[in-house]
């Protein structure tokens, strides 16, 4: 079917102004579609999916577009379903501390709104201005404060999901504890849009901290043992940092001006408790380490700059070089080794490398930039390092052309048949984000 015919067919089921031929084909990050549709209601999403399912049309789902380079072996599907106009707060019950929103709402917009009520979503994803809640949940995003607050899977209490056949299925609910039936929320969080379209997300909220600060603790080259023993001591203490994130020297230089391995130790609590903990860290700090404290606004400024790091699929890259971003999962303290290995790639592979990882949760993010062959080789190297530490590495951002060559999700797990079984049960015609996820699901 030619694109014009597809557009005409869609006009029979959806308002005309929602549909347009996509002139952004051949996007360097792929995951596009010949016809772009921007539904504005759940019913429109449902009609669109039902049509696609009956007619064997494949769909790419996009919202803010920050994760457009995250997985996917299709350059163009038939349809590009954009949730950019499906946004807004559906319900905020202040007293219950729950929030229900449409998927296309940007994270920053939500946090700004909630701040007026002294509340927040306890997540800290990258690129909050561009990233939308739908994308954050679909990719199970988290940031350095995962140590204190958990990830998307800990924040979501309910979802509405439009299944590929157009049916709307509710998972969870609007209460913070719920074991009625299977925990279906978990199935969709991190499913990369391969099972349906999230049409509504309900989150539990937390109060904004009454006070916050962060400590930057920088270690000179060659002091990695001291850094490790400090981290072990801190984790074994009764202090309650919400982040214990290690920055590689290049990332640290960009954010703090110090080209040193730097630990970012954040505290959020009542003021007396935060100061008490700052004092404890000062006492614990090794002699060689340099300590700086950022309070309140300065801490927030640091974080704002921090979240604007790494590739962003929604903004066209200004460089001709190849950009990639990896997520490496290892046992908590092995983060030290992964971040160190990443830093070594600068010289060995002639790349720009910015890496960070959480010593309290074991997840690292590594951004690399340089010549295509060097990037490819660096990915291979980092995956080997991860596997040597019994962990995994996935590539969260990579141009479409390179995704054909690099298996961004790594090898299939031994239980891959279960993942396939779930996919084929829910999306039997394989229309939703085909080939976007692990093992070509």
């Amino acid at each position, binding site marked *: 079917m030619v694109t014009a015919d597809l557009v005409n067919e869609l006009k029979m089921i959806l308002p005309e102004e929602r549909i347009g031929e996509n002139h952004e084909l051949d996007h360097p990050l792929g995951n596009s579609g010949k016809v772009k549709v921007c539904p504005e209601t759940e019913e429109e999403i449902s009609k669109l999916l039902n049509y696609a399912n009956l007619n064997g049309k494949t769909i790419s789902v996009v919202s803010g577009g920050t994760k457009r380079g995250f997985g996917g072996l299709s350059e163009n599907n038939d349809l590009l379903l954009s949730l950019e106009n499906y946004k807004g707060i559906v319900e905020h019950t202040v007293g219950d*501390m729950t929030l229900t929103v449409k998927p296309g709402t940007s994270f920053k917009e939500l946090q700004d709104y909630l701040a007026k009520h002294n509340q927040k979503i306890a997540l800290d994803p990258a690129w909050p201005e561009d990233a939308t809640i739908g994308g954050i949940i679909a990719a199970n995003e988290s940031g350095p404060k995962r140590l204190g607050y958990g990830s998307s899977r800990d924040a979501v209490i309910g979802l509405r999901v439009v*299944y590929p056949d157009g049916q709307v299925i*509710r998972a969870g609910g609007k209460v913070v504890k719920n074991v009625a039936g*299977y925990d279906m929320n978990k199935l969709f969080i991190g499913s990369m849009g391969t099972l349906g379209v999230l049409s509504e997300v309900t989150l539990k909220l937390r109060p904004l901290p009454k006070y916050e600060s962060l400590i930057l603790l920088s270690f000179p080259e060659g002091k990695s043992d001291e850094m490790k023993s400090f981290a072990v001591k801190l*984790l074994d203490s009764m202090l309650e940092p919400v982040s214990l994130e290690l920055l590689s020297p290049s990332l640290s230089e960009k954010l703090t001006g110090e080209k040193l391995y730097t630990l970012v130790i954040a505290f959020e609590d009542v003021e*007396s*408790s935060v100061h008490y903990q700052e004092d404890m860290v000062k006492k614990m700090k090794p002699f060689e380490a340099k300590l700086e404290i950022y309070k309140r606004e300065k801490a927030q400024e640091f974080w704002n700059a921090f979240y604007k790091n790494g590739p962003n699929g929604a903004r066209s890259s200004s460089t001709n070089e190849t950009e990639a971003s990896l997520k490496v999962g290892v046992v908590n303290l092995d983060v030290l080794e992964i971040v160190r290995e990443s830093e070594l790639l600068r010289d060995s592979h002639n790349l720009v490398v910015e890496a960070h990882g959480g010593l309290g*949760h074991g997840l690292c993010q590594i951004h690399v930039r340089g010549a295509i062959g060097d990037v490819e080789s660096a990915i291979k190297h980092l995956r080997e390092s991860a596997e040597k530490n019994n962990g995994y590495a996935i590539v969260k951002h990579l141009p479409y052309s390179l995704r054909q060559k690099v298996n961004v999700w790594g090898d299939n797990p031994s239980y891959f048949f279960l993942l396939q079984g779930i996919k084929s049960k829910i999306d039997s015609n394989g229309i939703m984000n085909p080939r976007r*996820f692990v093992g070509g699901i």
Partner: protein
Amino acid sequence: MAVKGLKTKDQHIINLANIVNSPRSILYQKEDLLAYDCDGFTIHKHLPRAVVFPKNTEEVARLVKYCHEHDLPFLARGAGTGLSGGAIPLNGEVIISLVRMKKLLSVDLENRRAVVEPGFVNLKLTNSISDKGYYYAPDPSSQYCCTIGGNVAENAGGAHCLKYGVTTNHILGLEVVMPNGEIIEIGANGIPDAPGYDLLGLLTGSEGTLGIVTKITVRILKNPEAKQTVLAYFDKVADGSQAVSDIISAGIVPAALEMMDKTAIEGVEAAAFPVGHPKDIEAVLLIEVDGISAGIDEQINEILDVCKKRNVREVKVAQDEAERGRWWANRKTGFGAMGAISPDYLVQDGVIPRSKLPIVLERINQISEEYGLRISNIFHAGDGNLHPLVLFDARIPGETEKALAAGSACLQVCADVGGTITGEHGVGIEKREEMRFVFKDEEIIAQTDIREVFNPKNLLNAGKLFPTPGRCVEIKKEMKAASTAAN
């Protein structure tokens, strides 16, 4: 090797005994099986075909494979403390008891994780690491005897999940025997976010219908530096409810925020751990705040202020660990305490948005009057998880049915205000039909579809969790199958 000394001709039992390789690792005679005809939900009873006690994962896998190949229904059981009937052998199952797989396999304090076998008792984990200053957070009231395997199956909660989350937030990895006997490992090495759909999250709380967990990696936490516990007595239950909302609105996240009403107070004071609650008050709140010592007093003062504004009659802070322990023993044995004032009781487990507390308590009162049965309320007020306890006397004909109906009516109220039918006890047998209060047919089918991926023969713990398919569900399912086949 054939096991000797069995007093049965049932070839399946002989074969199962051979797998566990000992006559002492299998029960099959009626008098032995009686102890396994129900769990903590005692209203339904059914005898299993046999109970086997494997010692390791391989034995579990071989038992499961045998059942799978011979179409024998089977299910896994831990300590049997479940309150919704999840471990009741409705179909004469072979029960695979995991109580002999009770080892603490490893503790890694630096990386804050521990690996346990499923029969390991919840509280033992905390006791094993408390000398180093660590603990395992999920703390169901039965933690002194319930197993972590059972906690995973039920996604167990507890009094402290307001701040620390329920079981699913603390599980990092699982080894699972699939319903066909295959062994899989998810969340290898306890590393979070393994690529792929979140099977850890799906399996946790699946009530033993998707697989049998044989090894569990859990997150452990450092003990909070300080802890303070407050008791607050209110003359009016509405004031107590409002105080709960006010505490949360003040931006405090208490570790626990529990409430008991007048009838519950009568029960706990008549039972084994009385602490001298006044008998003429309508509500008591038990509030615990933990964290950094320097910040605790400030939060406690704020809580005291809130309570005073809500006309608290008396409020007191625990003076030492012993007093704190007494208050918690009084609360945690609250369900059993109902035995002191009623021959039988039925515990329910609804959840509501916190702001609906006053209206829901009022409705539960009305239900109590309508059915002529006393209903006491012990609940995790902070997260809106109610435990209405319907008091009844099973010796009076018809009263058990009446109690079940009153319990169900309470759940309907919870569902009507936007809540749900279970927060931590699970659906099991007990609340199968009530699933319809919160899910439409298509949503139930969406869940049974997932079960079919894991448990296609439905031999593992069949008949739990989901309502008996209504005619319309069956027809819809057939239609769906037909349309899938046509595609």
